[in-house]
């Protein structure tokens, strides 16, 4: 285990399962033997607002917040939310992103514009693995597992064994959905490429 701390920033929209996904990552990191800190703010997150969580793991972690410019991996559950946190990323960072657009009410009934090609804007700025997780999850039985598909893709980018990931997922997902979530996780791993 090296002294380097791995910083994963997860973001999305309230209700998408961002917090559960970050809980699973943090649990997997703990089971893999790392010191871990995870930070989130809830309270208003259920009401459709932007949600962001920080997960940091390594030999010893101090701050629960990732310093801006030091995030190694961006995990985004929505395209505009991915763009929102680009200033947090390090120069070597990569992104794992659900290829989905959620139009906020500030666009539907306000003066703002949703960018025409958010995926393009993202890919120009950071190496991005783009997966239509909602479609994949829907095909596997429930759109609610989109976050597990994304975790599968993330698992190919971090130093945590697949078996540890599976334990953490089994522990954290709702009872009765373990097997379906495992299929979603494997599919995410497959789509992210590699063995």
């Amino acid at each position, binding site marked *: 285990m090296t002294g380097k701390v791995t910083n994963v920033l997860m973001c999305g*929209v*309230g209700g998408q399962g961002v917090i559960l996904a970050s*809980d699973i990552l*943090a*649990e997997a990191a*703990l089971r893999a033997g790392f*010191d*871990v*800190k*995870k*930070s*989130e*703010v*809830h*309270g*208003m*997150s*259920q*009401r*459709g*607002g*932007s949600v962001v969580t920080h997960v940091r793991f390594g030999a010893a*972690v*101090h*701050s*629960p*917040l*990732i*310093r*801006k*410019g*030091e995030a190694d991996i961006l995990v985004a559950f929505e395209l*505009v*939310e991915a*763009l*929102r946190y*680009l*200033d*947090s*990323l*390090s*120069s070597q960072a990569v992104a794992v992103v659900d290829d989905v657009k959620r*139009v*906020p*009410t*500030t*666009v*539907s*009934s*306000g003066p*703002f*514009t*949703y*960018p025409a090609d958010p995926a393009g*804007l993202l890919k120009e*700025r950071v190496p991005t693995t783009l997966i239509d997780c909602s479609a994949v999850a829907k095909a596997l039985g429930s*759109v609610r597992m989109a976050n597990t598909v994304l975790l599968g893709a993330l698992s190919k980018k971090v130093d945590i064994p697949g078996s540890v990931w599976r334990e953490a997922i089994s522990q954290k997902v709702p009872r009765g959905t373990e097997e379906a979530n495992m299929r979603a996780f494997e599919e995410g791993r497959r789509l992210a490429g590699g063995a």
Partner: protein
Amino acid sequence: MRKLLSGNEAIAEALYEAGVKVAAGYPGTPSSEILLNLVAHGEVHSEWCPNEKVALEVAFGASVAGRRSVAVMKHVGLNVAADPFFTFAYVGVTGGCVVITADDPGMHSSQNEQDNRHYARAAKVPMLEPTDSQEAHDLMLRAYDISEAFDTPVLYRTTTRIAHSKTPVELGSRTEHEKAVEHQRAKYVMVPGNAKARHKLIEERLPKLRGLSNELNTVEWRGRDVGIIADGVAYQYAREVFPDASTLKLVMSHPLPDARIRELAAAVKQLYVVEELDPFIEEQVRAMGISCVGKDKLPLLGELSPEVVAKSLLGTDKSRKVEGLPELPPRPPVLCPGCPHRGIFLVLAKRDIFVYGDIGCYTLSSAPPISAMDTCLCMGASIGGAHGMDMALGEERKGRVVGVIGDSTFIHSGITGLLNVVYNRGMSTIIVLDNRTTAMTGGQNHPGTGFTLMGEPTHRLDIEAIARALGVELVHHFDPYDLKATGEALDRAFAHKGPTVLITTRPCVLAPARITGDHVAVSDKRACKRCAACLKIGCPAISKVTPGTDGKKFDVVVSEDLCVGCDVCVQVCKFDAMRRSPP
């Protein structure tokens, strides 16, 4: 085995291990999960109280009974509980007692970012502040020993980042602590003669507590170029930015450890005080004649973070420069699809009415596109405020002012305001949004739900009966999903010569009693005139897709996954283009 726990979860486990018998509180972000986790341990009597003042009095009562107790609240809750808190400092404890204040720097979900460290100093009680979940656990156990050894309630302060961050924790097991019930009138009856004697004891206690602070707080010696004094999560940020600095971590931040501060200051070339919000530590350090860098560089506003500490104190910024991006649309929290609060505010927005609002999810209706709330001050202020405007505007007032308040907030501190309206011959129209839960904080029980925190069925407070008992003659229920009935309810209230209470009849869509709609709304693209009336109700289930079909600028699309079938948009559409789907 180490478990990943939030600060709140770790505190709940420590309260259990400390042998706490009675726990009382009122929900408030970021404190709510403490009692929600503690209640899993049946040995601890845990309860939601109508407000924080009552909760603190309950904890006090259990302490007098020789049992360990806790009162849990968010920072502004301590304002409500301040009356018993200050005199509790005089009488002290029999069983150990801890008052938890969960502060919210950055106002993630609060109306202000007051710094409750000042309360410890003002009330002359010891204050503890953890820097992660393990310390939150360990310090809570210490807090009970301190409370009993020094005969004082202990103020235990967390902030949102401590309360809601998860870090590894080793847990222990429960020990019981019980003392006999005794009549100790000179200690517990605060008439002036007794209180004068107790005040003397408090002043004598402070230097002893300072001695303890010099033991509990220690300097972590590293390099001598930079010295840091920090409390709470600010300590972690300082460790991140100044890994080589000698650091005085203040887990006990009142009284301050004068000897440790002098020791560090004498040994380092440059001393920084790193703290969130007010210069609470810094001013006391300066008063000791020690020079330091603090709020001359660090912000007084908002949360700190590693980048804010680095930028302020070192002038370094590692943020990635992002250029060429279009302006991104903000995504603020909004009322849920099917939220029963939406209808009443849509109706109020159409009229020339001044709306005194209150604390709860419905405060979101102050923002666009609904924009139908004019004030939000504190719990219960809608009723006092509406009455004040009524009195200020005189005869012309009827029909121009309403107070809007949620059920839990009404029970917390609206009842006395309503009594005041009646007593002082007011004419106010008060709307109680009775969604039968404490929604904003995640859906906790309260006296109006018919269930306790421990899940036991109990008497369900009848808001109509309360209003009538206070002397309100016109009390009327209405369905907030029915926009016509909502408007008529308002007309009726405004026509009545006297105070009126209107009560909504729909539960929170997230509450256990959520509506089970057998249909959703669908937009007929051919009938739709693109007037955008449905978009202006601020429902996240309805969105605009550009470009639209047949050369139209946009289409309106309702998300089947999000719509719960409240039909408010169906009523708003003048062209019969928004319809109920077949069941």
